[in-house]
């Protein structure tokens, strides 16, 4: 088991190299000159362009740029943004905010998925099941920008039940509303996965055995059906955790949350390579760790899964 974890952690190294290279290359191959864009609609004098390019090594060929970036990275220098801030500082500032938001959203999503999925699975084909499906689908097919906008307008502005924007006040409470809205628009996948595995689990031998042994229905559902059905939902939750961390741009924009979604999006559109690569790489390492935890969790939930 320990060996397994160590091996998995070692695998993070090639993932790290692969990610940095791929992302660096992608940002590099984005068409357009990022330096030119710093000057708005006015084309600056070529001399100025050159000076600014040289400052960010943008005048070097791709491999030199990439290697310079790696070299700096290994010496603990994560680079600077076009506005002259340390990328590491920007990340340290923005990441905890986004993490709070995403953790909250993912926990709510997970609970909704498990509870509603379980009910649906146990009542398969019934009116509750169908209602759950329609509700979840309607919620999920509202584009996020619309759902967030409506929630902010009615719950925040009209009813005054939640802060309208977050800004400097990035507390759990202030971000509950956006987290809830995100969860509501995405729980459908987890819910359906849970429902599907609950239906399967009910037919599984171990559940029949349990029921033949005369266990109470509550215990069968709670211990045998639910627990064994969690694997797909957990996998999905981990996936949405990853997707949300880098994908909260729209949410952060609407609720003015000073997180990494906005910084990353701006950096991408500006072609600010150091920021994009650093952010994405740190996030990748995080997914790797989350995925290790998830894989270990599989073994806990399903004793048949073993790692050597």
């Amino acid at each position: 088991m320990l060996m397994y974890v160590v091996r998995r952690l070692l695998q993070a190294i090639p993932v790290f190299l692969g990610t940095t290279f791929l992302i660096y290359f992608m940002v590099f191959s984005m068409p357009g000159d990022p330096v030119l864009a710093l000057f708005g609609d006015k084309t600056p004098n070529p001399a100025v362009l050159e000076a600014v390019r040289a400052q960010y090594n943008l005048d070097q060929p791709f491999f030199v740029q990439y290697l310079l970036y790696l070299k700096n990275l290994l010496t603990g220098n994560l680079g600077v943004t076009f506005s002259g801030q340390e990328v590491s500082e920007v990340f340290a500032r923005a990441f905890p905010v986004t993490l709070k938001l995403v953790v909250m959203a993912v926990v709510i999503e997970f609970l909704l998925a498990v509870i509603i999925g379980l009910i649906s699975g146990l009542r398969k084909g019934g009116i509750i099941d169908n209602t759950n499906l329609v509700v979840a689908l309607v919620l999920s097919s509202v584009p996020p920008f619309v759902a967030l906008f409506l929630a902010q307008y009615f719950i925040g502005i009209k009813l005054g039940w939640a802060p309208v924007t977050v800004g400097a006040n990035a507390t759990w409470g202030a971000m509950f509303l956006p987290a809830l809205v995100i969860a509501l628009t995405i729980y459908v996948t987890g819910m359906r996965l849970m429902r599907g595995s609950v239906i399967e689990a009910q037919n599984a031998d171990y559940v029949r055995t349990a029921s033949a042994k005369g266990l109470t229905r509550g215990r069968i559902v709670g211990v045998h059906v639910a627990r064994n059905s969690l694997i797909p939902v957990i996998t999905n939750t981990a996936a949405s955790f990853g997707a949300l961390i880098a994908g909260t741009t729209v949410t952060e924009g609407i609720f003015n949350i000073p997180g990494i979604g906005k910084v990353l999006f701006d950096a991408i559109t500006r072609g600010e390579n150091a920021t994009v690569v650093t952010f994405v790489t740190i996030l990748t390492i995080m997914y790797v760790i989350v995925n290790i935890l998830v894989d270990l969790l599989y073994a806990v939930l399903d004793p048949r899964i073993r790692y050597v």
Partner: protein
Amino acid sequence: MSDRITEHYVAPSDPNEGGEVDKVRLSDRKSNLWLDAWRDLRRRPLFYIAIAIVAVVSLAALFPSLFTDTLPNNDCQLANSNGAPTEGHPLGFTRQGCDVYARIVYGASTSLSVGLLVVLITAVIGIPMGALAAFYGGWIDSVLSRVGDIFFAIPYFLAAVVVMSVMPQRNVLVISLAIGGFAWASLARILRAEVLQVKNLEYVMASEAMGRSKFSTLVRHVLPNSLTPVIVYLTIALGAAITAEATLSFLGIGLGSSTMSWGNDIAQAQSSIRVAPMALFWPSLALTVTVLAFIILGELIRDALDPKARARR
């Protein structure tokens, strides 16, 4: 001892009967499965509703002129901006004064194609990646899963910008590639988790014990029994892809406003939500109903294909 003759009754052989039995056994097991599934589906009313919706949407996608005489992009008059329904324009007008109904009809083609193509691309990459990783384990798992991790980490916006700009032209295939080419990692992980569970089941071990090759066991036994989450994921991914196209349009890296799509309409209508919510409502409704139909269809097919679930009913 052995000189004792015992007579046993031997049934007269009937070559035909035995042959038929053998033939059935020899013939592809799948055809039977699909036939059973079809018999099962025929009895479900929901199936017909879902099929009807899918048929109507597909028809609109292929022959939009059957549904409307209005050419949605050719007569947008600002005088009609956000206008209420009038004769010949049953759902009113967009902010640009285009006919909402005609745009929805003509948008079906793009939206449906993007949805289906993304699902196809996701499945074609995600299923082998997830299944092989989990089933073979070891270094294959390490390599495939880590490749998945890398793809997983790429912000889809970045991927979309790069794909959309590197490709010489923007069309449905390119945008589907931009979405699906980077969305398969989730499916691979979900399938991997399921296969990890299924591969330890008795019948899988039995299959291998009986001398079936590993790969064949995977294809014949493990995959079919791991499809539940795949179908769930893919049917929902269909809707998600249509919405993703909306978000990309919204961010300006979609197909451009002369290409009609529900996503584009939803993105455009967002800015008028306070004054003309219906222009947002109708394309959203088309999207929801279509996705619903596909999910129901996926669900019923999954049920029908699952012998255990069938037996229980």
